[in-house]
């Protein structure tokens, strides 16, 4: 019988304005896409139940405003994050170039206990646009960036068509869980004694 106890995993989605943060979140949680999402003001989150190895987790996915000017608010929203998803638009070089900023800003504001090993996941979104003809950031380039940042897992998605979104978020959840479990070592209360069957989970190798 699966354990009833739920654990919250907090995930923050960051990236430039208009790269598709809200769309990714909604595609993953609600399996929906809309052309009419408004620019996110402030922050919001959606939750989704996920199951791993007989344990139920609540994935809390935070969507924030993408304009740089609002970054200073991050401090209120980033704290306690278990994983950070960086999103760029494969059709926008600028959104790719800004990834460093987003990553650094996150580490400063969230100040995780172990910044070196804090789990990030990179998503290159909008691969569907113009049949890929307007793409300006190559997969190779993105992967090189990921490698330089300590092998960040990388996914290419289309939030519009739902391509690869589920896979990306499974990896995100897994990474969040890993980071959460490390913390559990210091919080004996939250160790789950019900987890006995350690099955190998599928998904990304992160």
């Amino acid at each position: 019988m699966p354990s009833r106890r739920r654990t919250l995993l907090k995930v923050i989605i960051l990236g430039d304005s208009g790269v598709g943060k809200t769309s990714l979140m909604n595609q993953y949680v609600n399996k929906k896409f809309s052309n009419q999402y408004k620019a996110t003001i402030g922050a919001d989150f959606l939750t989704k139940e996920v199951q791993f190895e007989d344990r139920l987790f609540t994935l809390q996915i935070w969507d924030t405003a993408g304009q740089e000017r609002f970054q200073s608010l991050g401090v209120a929203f980033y704290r306690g994050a278990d994983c950070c998803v960086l999103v760029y638009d494969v059709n926008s070089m600028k959104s790719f170039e800004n990834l460093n900023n987003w990553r650094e800003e996150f580490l400063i504001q969230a100040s995780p206990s172990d910044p070196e090993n804090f789990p990030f996941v990179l998503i290159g979104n909008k691969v569907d646009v113009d049949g890929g003809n307007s793409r300006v950031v190559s997969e190779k380039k993105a992967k090189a960036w990921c490698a330089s940042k300590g092998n960040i897992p990388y996914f290419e998605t289309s939030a519009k068509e739902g391509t690869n979104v589920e896979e990306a978020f499974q990896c995100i959840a897994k990474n969040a869980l890993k980071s959460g479990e490390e913390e559990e070592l210091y919080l004996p209360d939250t160790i789950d004694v019900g987890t006995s069957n350690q099955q190998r989970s599928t998904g990304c190798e992160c």
Partner: protein
Amino acid sequence: MSMEASELQDLSDDADYAASQQQGSASMMRSDSGKRSSPSEHEDAELIYLKDNVAIHPTQFASERISGRLKLTKQDSVLFLSWIPYKGQTSNAKLSEKDRSLYTITAVPFTEVRSIRRHTPTLGWQYVIVVLSSGLAFPPLYFYNGGVREFLAIVKQHVFLARSSEDPNVFIVNDFQSPLQRTLSSLELPSSLPVASGQSVYPLDGGSSNENQGRTGADIGNRVSSVIQSGLRKQKSHDPTRDLSIHLLEKFSLVTKFARDTTTQLFSENNGFGSVDKRWNNQPVHSYPEKLSNIAEEKHNEIRHSYSENDLLKDEEISNDIDVPADPLEFNKLSLVWGKPRQPPMGHKEFTALLDSEGRVVESKALRERVFYGGIEHQLRREVWPFLLGYYAYDSTYAEREYLRSVKRMEYATLKQQWQSISPEQAKRFTKYRERKGLIDKDVVRTDRAFEYYEGDDNLHVNSMRDILLTYSFYNFDLGYCQGMSDYLSPILFVMEDESESFWCFVALMECLGPNFNRDQNGMHTQLFALSKLVELLDTPLHNYFKQNDCLNYFFCFRWILIQFKREFEYEKTMQLWEVMWTHYLSEHFHLYVCVAVLKRCRSKIMGEQMDFDTLLKFINELSGHIDLDSTVRDAEALCICAGENGAASIPPGTPPSLPLDDGTLYPQEDDVL
């Protein structure tokens, strides 16, 4: 508290005496507060720094400014800050000795100072705001003769002072905290304006919040006599902190009693429906008692319980296990709307009657009052909004406005040419332009596209919106474009139906609300801070709840304030709310009272369900589309009147949409050295 007035008169300028008195009075309320000794008593303190003509401005009136002397002293290697008002400053009869002692800062050790924020405008007075680690802050200290830089330099010689990475004007004291803490402290800095310690020393609800005070509340209460709001000055008895609370309690109990009476009436006689109030026209509301009588007269109309239809705001579902502290104003128990009933919107005839033969608004206040209580018929909006926004002067004639429009039309065309003339070749070398344009292009196509006026591909209005925003980002290049601006522009363009006119209305609006979009986000932080002060004043238990649950940053209200509820109401309702707020009729900051009104409506749900920050944010976001406008506006009106001067004093000067205090530096880009 029982001290004789004469004694106080004699001794109130004596800082030591004042401190000991405060200590005494506070310890009557909290027995453990006697632990710390008053540092001001030490005579062997070394004088480090002394500055004359440093003043506090309790109100916006020049006559009520209090000048004094700022001192830094050192005692056992701890640096202390004090500010003592001058004795016998006779410029103002209203300013009693007692008032002066109220603002005295008596030897605050720097170990309790979190940060110092400096304002050194090129024009106008320099001032600093000292924020304590408890989050409380002293009112701005104005350096009439300059010298803020010197002051900070001297502080720096004695305590560790680090410039905040977020804001070059903020200096963090004893900067040994974690980066997160550091960021937090600098973020909260705009909260560095006068704080009412009244509630924390003498909580309104009398009970539950006593435990929540923690040591800071009481400790600060001992010394922070100077952070009491200016509204106190008219009180009679001696303990200022007590005064404020008592004063409020009296007010609230009046209201509560009235509300109870009204409710009883409501439930016993249900015949008030449909009767039209005849009095709204001739009774502007100024004072609280007058307002009370107004409400009393109108009680027959008070049967709308709009919120009860709304599941999200229902209180009944809340479990009884959790003891929710009572609302001092008994808002949600009664589900009673207090303000005046909303009137039908103002029509053309009525508006014309407010103009003289040449088209001047005879009495702008009458117009603003009328709009405040009823809004404007849609067709008339394009005539009235430019007045409310400040684009048209109230005393302009038809002819002058016609002329203004034509001049402004040409001016707009010139401004628009500035970016229209940028060739693709030039654009390649103009990153900032490309980025701005990219951001605007992205945002206009996702602004109100479900609304008929903007729907469909290649919508001309969407193009106009883009042109206006791009032109604005050239007109105000320092501020540029920021997300949320398109939300403001959309209804304006829909109402004005003319690109140039919309542009200038938008410009006028941004004169007040530009700080919402400022890079340092200061305008937002100041408003969020003012909101927290208003909640503290109008619902102390709720304030305490937020405090306990780490929600005092009020970020969950960020969207409400940034775009003035644009995303919370449907389109037409947003326009109604905006025109009400733009009248600045009861308060320039009516939007903050609207925030308080909505929060109060949900208070027992928030506290009953023990919402944490995340849950609260989600809950507030999901209120969107579920808030009843009319009853909220009426609640806000009642709260605004109820809060009166104390409310106004809770809102720091320069809080948007008030114009900034110091002009020259509207949108500061960078700052230089210490």
